[in-house]
């Protein structure tokens, strides 16, 4: 079919005037790659709307189940790679005695400090948390901003984060090329702002920011946690001629709360 005929057919379809035989012709052209689906306006609009629909967020239980499965697989892998060879009695005897003693002491201590928490569950919870942390730290290293955002989001799902994680969050807050990732990492650090070291790092971070959005977010946070020591850093931003007026005004509002 000639190009102008194809265009006519597409126009007719877009007007809703095609008959069933013409729709079949159109299908043929779509299959041959002569008509692109985006040319069919009403369908393309519908498709875009469909893409825009978001599904609900997944639960943390789903993540935990996955990580528990991964840990189980890792253990299976480790045990299958273990090669057993029979040791000599001289080598084994003292070790065996020591192990028995340890087991007895363990039972004794367990009896004395008996708590209701299931140690297996506790161990698994700890392993899941460790694995999540390790995944988050790997994601922080990725080139894609989406992956780094996922890393930040993963840290927000943790009950308690390690020093390594807060360091990674600060590294991101201070150096990430993407402003959204920096903002997300700042938000992720808020729950830890009671910690003196985190507060000190947050104050240091003020001088490292060149994005007005992050500067304003930091000013709001400092106002919220009433961190007076941050005023000196904000003064430097206020004195900088390059700082936009809107940012200066927002910072001034936060300083008013602090002094």
């Amino acid at each position: 079919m000639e190009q102008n005929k194809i265009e006519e057919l597409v126009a007719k379809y877009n007007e809703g005037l095609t008959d069933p035989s013409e729709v079949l012709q159109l299908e043929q052209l779509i299959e041959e790659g002569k008509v692109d689906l985006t040319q069919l306006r009403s369908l393309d609009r519908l498709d875009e709307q469909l893409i825009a629909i978001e599904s609900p967020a997944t639960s943390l239980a789903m993540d935990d189940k996955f990580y528990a499965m991964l840990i189980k697989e890792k253990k299976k892998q480790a045990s299958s790679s273990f090669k057993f060879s029979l040791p000599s009695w001289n080598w084994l005897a003292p070790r065996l005695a020591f192990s028995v003693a340890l087991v007895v002491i363990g039972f004794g201590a367990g009896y004395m400090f008996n708590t209701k928490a299931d140690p297996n569950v506790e161990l698994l919870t700890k392993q899941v948390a460790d694995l999540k942390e390790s995944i988050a730290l790997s994601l922080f290293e990725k080139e894609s901003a989406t992956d780094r955002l996922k890393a930040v989001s993963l840290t927000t799902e943790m009950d308690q984060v390690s020093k390594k994680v807060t360091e990674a969050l600060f590294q991101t807050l201070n150096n990430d090329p993407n402003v959204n990732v920096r903002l997300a990492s700042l938000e992720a650090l808020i729950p830890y702002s009671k910690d003196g070291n985190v507060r000190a790092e947050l104050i240091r971070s003020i001088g490292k920011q060149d994005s007005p959005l992050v500067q304003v977010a930091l000013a709001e946070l400092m106002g919220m946690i009433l961190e007076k020591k941050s005023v000196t850093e904000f003064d430097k931003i206020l004195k900088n001629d390059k700082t936009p007026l809107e940012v200066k005004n927002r910072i001034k509002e936060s300083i008013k709360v602090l002094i």
Partner: protein
Amino acid sequence: MTAVRDGDVERLGLLFERYKRQLYGFFYGMNRNQELSEDLVQNTFFRILKYRHLFRGEGDFRTWMFHIARNVSHDHYRKDKLKWKESVEDWQDKLGHEENREGEMQSTETNVMLAMAMARLPHDKKEILLLSKYQEKKYKEIGEILGCSEGAVKVKVFRALQELKVIYQQLEKTM
């Protein structure tokens, strides 16, 4: 995925974090059931782990993942003999449930109606539209999942969108 296949199973966590939302969105689009969709995501990753040695590394991981996801979905429905079709009344009931309300209330009326129209589409048409969405319209890759040509996928998407449009217009009249 090649690292996972070669023994570094921990790295599957990276793939899980990268694709869990897309995979969940695919299942949720198919069944509108949050708990079931999460179980199916788990089953998919379980199979990925179990059959990791079968990943040849030639194609895209996401394509392979959706191939497995599709099988997981089919197996589930075959086993439970669940109905594919849902009535509008069922849908309205679902919107009333606590777990669905939160997400749906945030959507615009159009989105809710579109989701209702999707729920009324035949299974194969719903599936092709969801694959198109989560595979970002990469029709060649979808063809690999479905075992057909790129052109055939485009025609399937065209037909599915046409039917969706008709159902949507019918719903518009009744609402």
